[in-house]
Each structure stands twice: as structure tokens, then as C-alpha cells.
């Protein structure tokens, strides 16, 4: 069942007269950059989920909040759908455009407005890149903690909209834990402040609600993030295992020892080999699994913790434990992990990155399940795993030029996510639902829960003009998705409520 917007199941979209809208935009906002030629629109037809493309009707590139405000007012009056986009690095199609909508690109809002070391915050425009915040804070020995792997390119507005994560979440939290305040525009173009310069704000915690809401409740125009002092030192241990089960258990043992690593990553053999071929990170290619365990903080504590973790890893049956000798080797160990996706991209024409989360104890069973599903589908899967927080990134290898392989990869991906839900996990840990996982939402939530989500949406955007079709499926879509599964045999989880 296609994930592209389908009015039959996703609801009718308003009919918009492109030329009339263009004329009106030019009249009301003469200094607003508007793209309307087919060839200018082309670069905006997808985000990081490039397998799915839709050409937007118009692309607008505002530079001032007043322009966005006027645009939203106009779109609200005329009933024009608006899809917000930051840097376009999202992996779930959250910024996938609509043929009958405006794509609102916020990339030109790229100014760092304030870095305040005494208050330990930075106030930035939404198009500022994640890494640029830490770079601006670096002279004060401060940094912004969440570090999604796209941090060199992704924008903070997109990070807020997706509640982006990264490799340090277990210790330092997600985007939602590192925000103080966001300025938003409502669908009607009204300004609203969520959160505050203090640690809380009166009323409901709308800052939490908006974080991860995928551009469905409002448009983010300014973000105030918390800054943290840079850890004095960071050391990384690389442990090899002859089975993924042992590596999985070692993760639980480290936590049971009362240690919260700054980062705790796991890779399986296929991923290890791909990385080693690509950048020679010094990984043991014979190992069935490796763990990278980073300990950061004050020198004396980190040294103690390294010794403790080394003992735990050896006790857990590691065949080898190596402490990065120096900063250069530490960076090399991490470079391997951070390049895992492109490395896998070299051994397969295409790959499809999944983002399920599971309770950590379920890891061995889920990895077995993935390997069985992989064999059934005839597609290889490499596993990269934020082991500390239970966030898996199975990479499905396929060749889009082979007829039917993309569909098989999608089907395999869907089954892997449903497996995550079955063991008490979630279909997305940090990439978001977007359009990509719109069908799997029907496996994670029942119709009453989805109805409540739609009620939340209705409180902020009753006319449904902000990013239509993303994040929350219609009950109609879920009914068809459920029916399709029945046709293929029995329902995947008969105990779940269906409609």
C-alpha cells in the first residue's frame, strides 16, 4: 500500500489554483522568493527519504518572520496546504511536498541570534545547522548535546519538529530534553511562545507537545536550546564478541554496574565488514558483534569507569577489549560508526534505513527475528544499534533497479517495525513517522488512540492545512492497511484491536 498521499484514504485535499495563488503571493509579498518553474521545483521534490518524490506546487523561501506570518494568513484564508522544510535531511519523508501545497523552506533563517554563556543557552533561527550551534558555543567551552548523524547539515528547526536524537541520548537526552523555548506561528499566522527563558512555563507543556510534532501543529520560527559544559575527557572502549547475544547482554551488565556511558553503540558482522572496507577504522572483521562504549566526564571518574567497564566486558565474554590509545584512535573508532550508513551504501546499490526501538532485553530475539525475515525476503540486513537506548537501525540492502526489490525492502522494513511493536517497542525512535511509517502507525496505535491524536491536531489546526497526511494515519488508511494484511494471511498481531 503506497505511502504517497492518496486522497481516497488520506482525505481530500483542497483544490488550489496555482496561477491565482502565485499572482496573489506576488501582490501581497513582492519581496518573497517564490519558485514555480518545474525545473526550479525539482530539487525540493523529496527530503532524505529520496525513494519517494512529489513535486510541490510552489516553493517559498522567506527570510523574515513577517513574510512567514503573511504567507500563513494567506494560506489559511485560501485553504492552501503548507509543508514546512528545514535542511531536508529527514529520513521519514516528513518534508515530502504535496502537489497541491506550498513548500515553506526555512533554510534562510540561518542566524545565531545569541550565545549566552552565563545563562548556558543559545537562541537561534530554525534554519541554523545543529553543528553550527556547538561551533558557536565552543569558545565558551559549551556545546549543544543532541547529535543526530546528519548534524553537519540538519537544521535545528527540523530537529525540534522530529525530536531528533543521536548517539548520546541515554546520558544527555533527546531534543525535547535540551530545549528551553520555541517561538512558533500558528496556522493562522499568530505568534506564540512555548516554554520560556526559565526552566518551565505556566500552563500545559506545549513545548513538549510541539517537539516531534512534525510540522503539524505550528511553524517554528526561533529556538532557544540549552548548552552544556564540554566534558573534560572522553575515552572509548572497543569490545569484540563472538555472538550478538553476548554483546547484547554486556550492555545490560554495564548499566547494572551503575555506569551510564556517554555513548554505547553496537554493530553486527555485516556492518563491521562494510565499515572496515570503507574507512579502516581498526574494527575486528572476524567479530560477530562489536560494542563501542564511550565514557565522558571528569578525568578521574572516566579513568575509574573505564576500568569498571573493561572488567564488565571481559566478564561478559568479550574476546577482546581495546581502549582507544589516544584522541586520534578515539576519533577513528567513532568515524567507523558514523560512516556505517555510507559504508553499507558501498556494498549495495541501495539501502533502506529502519529506526525501531525495543526494550534492550529483547535484542537477541529481535535480531534472530530480523535474520529470519531477511532470509525469507532474500534481502541482506546489516544491523547498527544505539545499544544504550534500544534504538535499532537495521539497514536493508537492495537494488532499486531490480524490479520489485524496493517493494520487498519496504515490506521487510514494515515487518521489522511490527516486530519491534510486538516486543513492546516503537516503530520510530528518532527519525519520525512522516509518510514513511504512516502504515506502521496502525500497528502501534489502536483507533481510539489515533482518534485522540487527531483531536490534538484539531485543537491547533482544525482545517488540517499544516503538513497534511504526515505522522498520524486516517482511520480509513488503517482499515485498508489492516484488511491488506488479512488478505495475506492472518493478522500479524491478533491481540491488537482492529477496525
Amino acid at each position: 500500500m503506497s505511502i504517497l498521499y492518496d486522497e481516497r484514504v488520506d482525505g481530500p485535499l483542497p483544490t488550489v489554483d496555482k496561477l491565482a495563488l502565485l499572482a496573489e503571493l506576488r501582490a501581497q509579498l513582492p519581496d518573497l522568493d517564490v519558485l514555480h518553474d518545474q525545473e526550479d521545483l525539482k530539487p525540493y521534490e523529496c527530503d532524505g527519504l529520496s525513494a519517494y518524490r512529489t513535486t510541490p506546487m510552489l516553493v517559498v523561501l522567506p527570510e523574515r518572520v513577517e513574510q512567514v506570518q503573511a504567507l500563513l494568513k494567506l494560506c489559511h484564508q485560501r485553504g492552501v496546504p503548507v509543508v514546512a522544510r528545514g535542511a531536508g535531511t529527514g529520513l521519514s519523508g516528513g518534508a515530502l511536498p504535496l502537489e497541491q501545497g506550498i513548500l515553506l523552506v526555512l533554510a534562510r533563517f540561518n542566524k545565531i541570534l545569541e550565545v549566552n554563556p552565563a545563562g548556558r543557552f543559545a537562541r537561534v533561527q530554525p534554519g541554523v545547522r545543529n553543528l553550527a550551534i556547538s561551533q558557536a558555543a565552543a569558545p565558551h567551552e559549551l556545546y549543544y548535546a543532541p547529535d543526530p548523524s546528519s548534524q553537519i547539515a540538519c537544521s535545528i528547526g527540523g530537529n525540534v519538529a522530529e525530536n531528533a536524537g543521536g548517539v548520546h541520548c541515554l546520558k544527555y537526552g533527546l531534543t525535547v530534553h535540551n530545549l528551553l523555548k520555541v517561538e512558533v506561528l500558528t496556522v493562522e499566522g499568530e505568534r506564540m511562545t512555548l516554554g520560556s527563558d526559565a526552566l518551565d512555563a505556566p500552563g500545559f507543556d506545549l513545548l513538549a507537545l510541539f517537539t516531534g510534532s512534525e510540522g503539524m501543529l505550528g511553524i517554528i520560527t526561533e529556538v532557544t536550546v540549552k548548552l552544556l559544559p564540554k566534558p573534560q575527557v572522553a575515552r572509548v572502549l572497543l569490545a569484540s564478541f563472538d555472538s550478538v547475544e553476548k554483546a547484547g547482554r554486556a550492555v545490560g551488565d554495564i548499566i547494572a554496574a551503575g555506569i551510564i556511558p556517554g555513548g554505547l553503540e553496537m554493530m553486527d558482522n555485516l556492518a563491521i565488514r562494510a565499515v572496515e572496507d570503507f574507512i579502516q577504522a581498526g574494527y575486528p572483521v572476524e567479530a560477530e558483534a562489536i560494542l563501542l562504549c564511550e565514557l565522558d566526564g571528569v578525568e578521574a571518574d572516566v579513568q575509574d569507569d573505564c576500568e569498571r567497564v573493561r572488567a564488565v566486558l571481559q566478564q561478559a565474554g568479550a574476546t577482546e577489549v581495546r581502549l582507544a590509545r589516544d584522541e586520534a584512535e578515539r576519533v577513528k573508532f567513532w568515524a567507523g560508526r558514523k560512516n556505517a550508513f555510507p559504508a553499507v551504501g558501498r556494498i549495495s546499490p541501495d539501502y533502506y534505513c529502519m529506526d525501531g526501538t525495543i526494550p534492550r532485553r529483547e535484542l537477541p530475539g529481535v535480531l534472530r527475528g530480523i535474520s529470519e525475515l531477511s532470509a525469507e525476503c532474500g534481502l541482506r540486513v546489516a544491523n547498527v544499534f544505539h545499544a544504550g537506548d534500544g534504538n535499532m537501525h537495521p539497514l536493508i540492502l537492495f537494488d532499486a533497479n531490480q524490479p520489485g526489490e524496493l517493494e520487498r525492502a519496504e515490506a521487510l522494513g514494515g515487518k521489522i517495525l511490527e516486530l519491534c511493536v510486538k516486543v513492546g517497542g516503537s516503530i520510530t525512535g528518532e527519525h519520525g513517522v512522516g509518510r514513511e511509517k504512516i502504515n506502521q502507525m496502525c500497528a502501534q496505535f489502536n483507533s481510539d488512540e489515533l482518534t485522540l491524536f487527531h483531536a490534538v491536531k484539531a485543537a491547533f489546526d482544525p482545517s488540517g492545512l499544516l503538513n497534511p497526511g504526515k505522522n498520524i494515519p486516517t482511520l480509513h488508511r488503517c482499515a485498508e492497511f489492516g484488511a491488506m494484511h488479512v488478505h495475506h494471511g492472518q493478522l500479524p498481531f491478533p491481540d491488537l484491536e482492529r477496525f
Partner: protein
Amino acid sequence: MSVDHDASAALLEQVNHALNSSTALRIQGGNSKAFLGRNVAGEVLDTRAHRGIVSYDPTELVITVRAGTPLVELEAALDEAGQMLTCEAPHFAEGATVGGMLAAGLSGPRRPWSGAVRDLVLGTRLITGFGKQLRFGGEVMKNVAGYDLSRLLAGSFGCLGVITEVSLKVLPKPRQTISLRLQMDAACALQKLAEWGQQPIPISAASHDGQALHLRLEGGEGSVAAARERLGGELLDSAYWGELNEQRLPFFAAAAPLWRLSVPSHCGVLALPGEQLIDWGGAQRWLKSDADAALIRQVATEVGGHATCFSAGHCDSPLQPLAAPLLRYHRQLKAQLDPQGIFNPGRMYAEI
């Protein structure tokens, strides 16, 4: 003694009955925070029969608890496993429940460094204004499927539904804790805190009681010893933090109304009539003052914060009134999630 009992069916039945008869409900656990917010006229819905720890696996760093569970029981279970709720939510009375902790959303001295109650929330079960018990979030650290309704419930004072269960992230207790007392005035303390905040010093609580700066250091043996060496001062009994959190210090006994000002930590000393006590490294100021609500709120707002009145019945809107667009969206959200307006109507604001 710990009791394990699932009373969700009875709670659901009471909610459905209230929906059918359009009866307002006053949701209550241990009634330990009843003094907060506005009065609610309604039939009492007591969550306390719905109690017990549903699941707890220390290596997963997650505990799932029914809302009526006494907070002391949750804390004891964590303590036994060498873990804790980092938010140090205040009890205010013996019977405080987990549901009340979440609904009130109050956090203790560790807040600026380890987050609030809402930051620990991973998932909830909620009885809604449509008469259903639903589940949002879950027991995993990362989960961005759907809107984050679970964190929205933290601090919502029961106005959006009846919280029946919550999954919380827990952490190991620090290996080492010591507390220090450093003689200095409030202005100097705030300045020092702003400076130390930019450095990797393992401070986990910082309060100024009018006379001296009180600090708590938590971490590994090495970092705590090094910080102790560097900061000087005299050792302080760690019981101070509990007394502060539970409002049992002599400061809180004064007759004047109690206000909580939530402000940016680096905003300096606030000029207000009455006595002040600084917590949260400067981000939370307790004020005992007879001053007008309007004046107190003006001072708090000017520095980017807000003020809540903690003395029951002292002012009509104990929570700081909301700006017009925010209030409108609060009303719309309330109307969507609780269309009949049966859950704690008026507890936060007269309009919701």
C-alpha cells in the same frame, strides 16, 4: 507494605458514569498537593486503589507504576536496586502518589542538572474524555511515534484526563555525594553559579538561604573530591536538601504567602518585598511576601520568568495567567481532549 491492585476498570466506570451524567470529577491521590491551583467543585475520583509496580527491570532503567502507588513505595523499590528518580519530586505529605507527582509536575533541587518529572516520562496510560483507557509512549527511551501526549500530561493537574499508569526513566544513584556550605551573599552566589555552570563541576543542587550558598556534589569519587578541594567551604548535612524540597526549612514557616518564581538562573537578585530563598542554582526563587500578585508577576515576567502562588486561596489565579493566543489554544486543547469538561475543571485556570 506494597499492594498490587489493578483498579483501572473501576476508575474507567466512574469516568464513564461522570460522562453520562455530565458530572465534574475532582481527581485525587494522596491529596498532598491539593493546596496547589484553584479549587475544583466535583465528585472525588480517588486513584489510590489503583496501585503497585507493574514492571521494573533495573538494567532497562525503566519502571512502570500505577498512578495510585505511594511515591515512597516507588522510591523504596528503586533504592533497593541502587537507582533513583533523578527529579526528586517533593512529597509534601506522607500519602503522596505517583499520579500526583506527574500531574503536579514539581521537581526537586536536582532539576537544572537532571531534568524535571516530564523529562523522565516515557509513557502513560490515560482515561480520556471519551471514556477509554489508552496508552501513549511506552517503556523505551526513544519513541517519536505520534504526538508526545505523555509528556504533555506532566504538570497538567489532571485537566486532560485521569492518568492511570506511568513509565519513568530511572538512573543509578551516584557513587559519591557530599554537600558544602559556603559563606557568601546571594548576589555573589548567583555570580559564582553562573561561572561554575560553564565548567564540568559535578554540582547537583545549589541553594542560597539568605546567609550562605549550599551546594551538593554528586559523581564518582575522583570528581567529587577534586571539586570539594577546589570549592572549599565547610561540609553540610545532606539532610538540608530534603528539608528544602519538602518546605520544612524555617524560611517556609513564616506567615506571609508563599510564591514560587521560575526565572532564568543568571537574572541576578530580584528586588521584591519579603524574604527570598534561592534553589535550582538560581532558576527557582521562593518568596515569602505580602506584595501584590501583580507586582510579583511583573518582576518575574520582566526577567523572562513567571510566578506561582503556593498558598491556597491567596489569589484567584495561583498559576500565572496566559497570553491571549496561548490561552485560546489551551481552551481548544481542553475542549478537544475533554469535550464535556469533567476533569478537574478550573484547577489550573478558570477557563479550562
